[in-house]
């Protein structure tokens, strides 16, 4: 029983971390119809920046600085690699995204020299705690709570503010939005800023549990988050969050069995099954959720 609780807890926690990345995928897809392949690497860069910055400044400064720099990185990637291709075929933008992904990995390789770097222990969230008699870290509890708070805030932003209304409009129709006087480039930038911010938060939570960062550290969580976004119905924020929690829990349960080496394959098998049964993903059909 204890083992089961610990698996579920850690699954929810992993799922929450995937969710924070998956929201970035799904929002960018919702607005640009682009799979932003660089998103997982932005997550990895946020991890690396934390390592380097926390070495030279206290955490209460380095955490906000990492959040700001990650946001800036997401913003710059969009401006430099996607905006010039706004009227190009979608495939070109996708290639550009793959290019940015490798560029970030290569820069990370250059900077770290390929050596795994150790993530700083963040006091409080990495502290041990007992839940139902199961020893774990605070981060396991904090992650889902944080995800819920951030998702509620994001949903309020999208449904009840002028900017959110503009985001929903741009996601549906660029040209009609322009006719309303909406500056679509600003709205797209805001989308990347939100996505990168959430990825940065996710990276702090994730690397606290998996405390080494290598240049490819973003690839697997990025891919899993992407699967979660497709699973939930890409373009839908609630879909991405629920998809991420399901994938996180399933994956952790598999990891607790004798088939642990198949856990990644299982994630994709799960995706295939869902897509066969419901090709648009869990929430893909409800167009009102598209952002």
């Amino acid at each position, binding site marked *: 029983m204890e083992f089961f609780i610990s698996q579920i807890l850690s699954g929810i926690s992993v799922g929450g971390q995937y969710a924070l990345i998956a929201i970035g995928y799904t929002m960018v897809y919702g607005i640009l119809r682009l799979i932003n392949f660089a998103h997982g690497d932005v997550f990895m860069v946020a991890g690396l920046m934390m390592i380097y910055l926390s070495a030279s400044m206290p955490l209460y400064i380095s955490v906000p600085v990492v959040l700001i720099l990650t946001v800036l990185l997401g913003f710059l990637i969009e401006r430099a690699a996607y905006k010039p291709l706004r009227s190009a075929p979608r495939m070109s933008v996708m290639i550009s995204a793959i290019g940015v992904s490798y560029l970030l990995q290569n820069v990370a390789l250059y900077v770290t020299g390929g050596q795994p770097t150790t993530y700083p222990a963040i006091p409080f969230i990495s502290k041990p705690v007992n839940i139902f008699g199961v020893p774990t870290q605070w981060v396991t509890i904090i992650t889902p709570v944080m995800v819920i708070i951030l998702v509620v805030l994001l949903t309020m932003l999208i449904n009840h503010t002028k900017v959110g*209304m503009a985001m929903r409009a741009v996601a549906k129709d660029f040209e009609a939005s*322009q006719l*309303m006087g909406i500056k679509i480039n600003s709205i797209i930038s805001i989308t990347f800023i939100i996505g990168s911010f959430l990825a940065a938060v996710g990276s702090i939570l994730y690397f606290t549990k998996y405390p080494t960062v290598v240049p490819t550290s973003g690839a697997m969580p990025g891919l899993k988050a992407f699967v979660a976004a497709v699973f939930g119905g890409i373009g839908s924020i609630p879909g991405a969050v629920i998809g991420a929690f399901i994938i996180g829990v399933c994956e952790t349960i598999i990891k607790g069995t004798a088939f642990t080496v198949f856990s990644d394959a299982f994630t994709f098998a799960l995706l295939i099954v869902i897509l066969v049964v419901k090709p648009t993903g869990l929430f893909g059909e409800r167009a009102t959720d598209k952002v």
Partner: protein
Amino acid sequence: MMSNAILSIQDLQVNYGGIEAVKGISFDVPEGEIVTLIGANGAGKSSTLRTIAGLVKPKSGTITYMGEDITGKDPTAIVTKGITLVPEGRRIFPDLTVKENLKLGAYTRKDDLSDDINWVFDLFPRLKEREWQAGGTLSGGEQQMLAVGRALMSRPKIMMMDEPSLGLAPLVVRGIFDIIKEVNKQGVTVLLIEQNANMALKTAHKGYVLETGRITMSGSGAKLLADESVKAAYLGT
């Protein structure tokens, strides 16, 4: 040229998708009137409106609005200045509620919108009934009302309309033209393009005939309606 023109187009040339869509046209839109451009598919009507709205940059020529050169300004600047376009196919936001659609029409404004929303609801009581419905659930005619209402929310001086009657039943089309007249009576200048030349010329004070990127004829709506060549080409009589 008329001195009371609120909008004046000079030698406008527009290339669109590699095609010379508009080949140097000039026309004036007098303040307070309904002006129509008629012409067949591909005559360059839509490209002209899209260029005025700022969605397309012209190759050459000038667009003067209230004495100011607005050529090549972006759509946000154009709508802020008081020119709005009701696009072809209505293009309302289907997932957003009727009210949200209206609010987006006033996106560039920072003042209180309640008077304007009530004004639009007075013009279109049907929209008031459907205030909280998603735009996509409205009928074609209601969506056109919403598109017009949304455009009016920007408090325009000129409302441009691209094929407002397209795909609507004849009875609904009559309603749309009544709306156009009503909006015009309330002081909004209207620039209308239509394939339904008959209705357009009956409604408009002034008309221009556009053929393959050039203006070939102009005059009052009544004069063009009576013209033999217009009749033959556009009125099917």
